[in-house]
């Protein structure tokens, strides 16, 4: 029986390194020049600050209002002995982004970043980096937050639904050409022999991620593509960051945008990040997908709860901090009850459960060996299934500890291990040795190198890895040449 470790065993009170945001490695790969140009805009600095870990943010804040550089030892004096490692990691992460200047003697912020972030916090300046609001138009009603949410949700679910149903041969509404191209480029979908787009195993895994992660992985792909399309990366990034600092439910003017950014408007409209009255409209409104880009909170109300979303602007901040509404109940007998009428959620569940009954607001299914193996063969891992079930567990389930029945968790993992019984390795088979002594001699040498994968004395043959072949071959040749 393989050992199976429990989920979420991290102790609460010990601070540990937070996994980096998906965008940060991309930013780190950019040149210092690009980053410095990006840091000229206060909104970009503010958004990047929010993507960083808590310790990194505090380090930046500590240095923000200092006029001159401070010795490294002064800052290190604040660190508790146990936190040295965390501190050094945080410091090198910020240095990697060229926010803190790389020096072993003094610590200081990048001057561009410092002045921009100061400007963001105190307000003022003339950079217009937080978006120019559109002129009030008396004739038209301002767009409601409900409309924006519904629009963003519809766009986003169209994309996901298209992906999930492509594997089942159904043809739902197609997203726009730009989106399809992006999905194909990111390897989430692919065409085989000129046929229609098919979802890949990466695509299946993508479906089980949280909406926030999904959004960022698509946007990252968009950024990679922007580089190839000769778009100015700084313009693209700063537009995204500007969107993330805009206010939901307001209209902004597109007049002050650069040509690149105007071109982006259309792309982002397809993803559901931006709402426009007409394609040619001079105004645009960011949706919740855009304004929560730098949050941890789920960017969209799941559609089962979309009808009950609060409308008043004051309560939005409350509802955005509330967690996602779970809908799945998993019992120890492998039965899954999903309180949803959302076709997308049903379709995603259908990836790894066998459906039994459907009611207007309830789907009942079973986790069976066949259904899980089908998911595994699509490239979904057991951990992804389990984390999806955890993330969408019904509030009623959250009273259980552990959240999911242990038997079911173990069984899913065992089903995955079942598939891993065969292990393949490339290498060479050595056989037809003239004498037992020859065989023993060569085998002893191969064992010394540690490259033997299998041996059989009666047949006088053994199997060695690819790496060991050159050595063994040379050894045999030297031996036969000598004799």
């Amino acid at each position, binding site marked *: 029986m393989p050992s199976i470790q429990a989920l979420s065993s991290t102790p609460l009170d010990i601070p540990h390194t937070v996994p980096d945001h998906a965008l940060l490695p991309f930013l780190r790969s950019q040149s210092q020049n690009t980053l410095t140009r990006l840091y000229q805009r206060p909104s970009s600095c*503010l958004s990047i600050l929010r993507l960083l870990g808590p*310790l990194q943010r505090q380090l930046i*804040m500590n240095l923000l209002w200092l006029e001159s550089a401070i010795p490294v030892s002064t800052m290190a004096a604040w660190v508790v002995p146990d936190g040295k490692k965390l*501190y050094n990691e945080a410091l090198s992460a910020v240095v990697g982004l060229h926010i803190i200047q790389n020096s072993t003697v003094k610590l200081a912020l990048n001057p561009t970043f410092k002045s921009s972030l100061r400007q963001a*916090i105190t307000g003022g300046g003339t950079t217009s980096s*937080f978006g120019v*609001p559109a002129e009030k138009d008396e004739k038209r009603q301002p767009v409601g937050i409900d409309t924006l949410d519904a629009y963003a949700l519809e766009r986003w679910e169209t994309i996901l639904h298209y992906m999930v149903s492509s594997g089942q041969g159904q043809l739902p509404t197609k997203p726009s050409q730009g989106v399809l191209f992006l999905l194909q480029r990111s390897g989430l979908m692919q065409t085989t022999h000129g046929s229609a787009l098919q979802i890949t195993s990466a695509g299946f895994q993508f479906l089980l991620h949280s909406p926030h992660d999904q959004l960022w992985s698509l946007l990252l792909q968009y950024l990679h593509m922007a580089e190839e399309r000769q778009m100015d990366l700084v313009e693209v990034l700063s537009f995204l960051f500007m969107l993330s600092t805009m206010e939901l439910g307001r209209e902004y003017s597109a007049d002050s945008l650069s040509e690149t950014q105007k071109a982006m408007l259309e792309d982002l409209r397809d993803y559901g990040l931006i709402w426009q009255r007409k394609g040619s409209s001079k105004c645009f409104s960011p949706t919740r997908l855009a304004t929560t880009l730098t949050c*941890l909170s789920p960017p969209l109300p799941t559609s089962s709860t979309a009808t009950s979303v609060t409308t008043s602007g004051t309560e939005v901040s409350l509802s955005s901090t*509330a*967690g996602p509404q779970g809908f799945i109940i998993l019992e120890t007998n492998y039965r899954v009850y999903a309180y949803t009428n959302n076709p997308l959620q049903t379709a995603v569940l259908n990836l790894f459960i066998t459906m039994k009954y459907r009611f207007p607001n309830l789907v009942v299914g079973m986790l069976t060996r066949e259904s899980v193996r089908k998911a595994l063969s699509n490239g979904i891992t057991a951990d992804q299934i389990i984390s999806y079930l955890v993330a969408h567990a019904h509030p009623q389930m959250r009273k259980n500890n552990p959240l999911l029945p242990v038997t079911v968790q173990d069984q899913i993992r065992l089903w995955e291990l079942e598939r891993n019984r065969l292990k393949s390795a490339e290498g060479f088979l050595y056989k037809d040795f003239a004498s037992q002594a020859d065989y023993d001699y060569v085998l002893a040498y191969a064992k010394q190198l540690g490259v033997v994968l299998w041996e059989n004395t009666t047949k006088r043959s053994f199997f060695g890895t690819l790496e060991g072949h050159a050595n063994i071959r040379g050894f045999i040749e030297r031996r036969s040449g000598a004799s």
Partner: protein
Amino acid sequence: MEAEADKPSHLAVIVDLSPTQWYLSAQASNPYPLSIESFLSQILAFLNAHIATKNENTLAVFGAFPGKSVMLYASTETLVDEPPPLDANSYPPFKMVDTTVTQRIFRELDTIDPGDEPPCALVGALTKALCYINRITLPSISTSVAEGSTNVPDPRILILSVSPDLSSSYIPIMNAIFSAQKLKVTIDVCKIYGPDTVFLQQAAHLTNGSYIFLERRDALLQYLIMSFLPPPSVRKVLAVPRQDKIDFRAACFCHKNIVDIGFVCSVCLSIFCQPVPVCSTCRTKFPIKALQRLKSACPSPAPATPRPLANLNNAVPRTTEATNHGTPGLR
């Protein structure tokens, strides 16, 4: 588990806005004069920095005015009549904080009667802050229980004090400290002007917060950012200065004097500066004999015939002293 390491936090800031103290603070004869205007601009930058570090961070600001406490800003409530117009050069939430806080402070200051100035309602503001924290941490009826418990913001209170201790507020402050302990709220104190306050030192100590006496008042913002911006999880790595000497003296219940040696009711632990025949809190009657013995041992109003020293050792059965860590339970 990202959410655990990087939780949103709620900060409640209590600003002491006593006109007299701020007038004194701005006098050029001080080592580092600090006017209320410069204080406000620095505190606004600090508030913005708190919201800037995380999108989900929430903020509440309370003002302690003479004889009155007012909520100046709260993330979940709209306190001004109309939101400020959008401006391309500033982040809307920051602008909202700045305009709301300044507008409401000036409105309150205008209504202050220039004559007699009652003491600052610091306790009122502290209690309001605790009530507000209680409200946002407790899951509301409409949302489910599980939802609320997973997304509780880490609450903290920061008191920016300029007024001296008000001994009549000892009991309410202690009660507030106990509620804060129960709610697991950290109370930080920054003493901007005036002498150290005993009660706020105790508040910070008992709730695991830090008490900082501002020496260089021209560097207020840097003090605030380095000591009070990090949430408790970050403070485990970047240490924040703590007070090493804390004044644990209590105030008596009868005259509200801060006492070095007090007399404690053996039933309800109320503190008195003199021996009393009947406890004013729980109405317990003390035996007349014990009373006489205590009275004779009382140091300040010297009795007519001083007793020999030998009897003094068992004369005061229970005392609260400056080094005593325990604080009596209050009703």
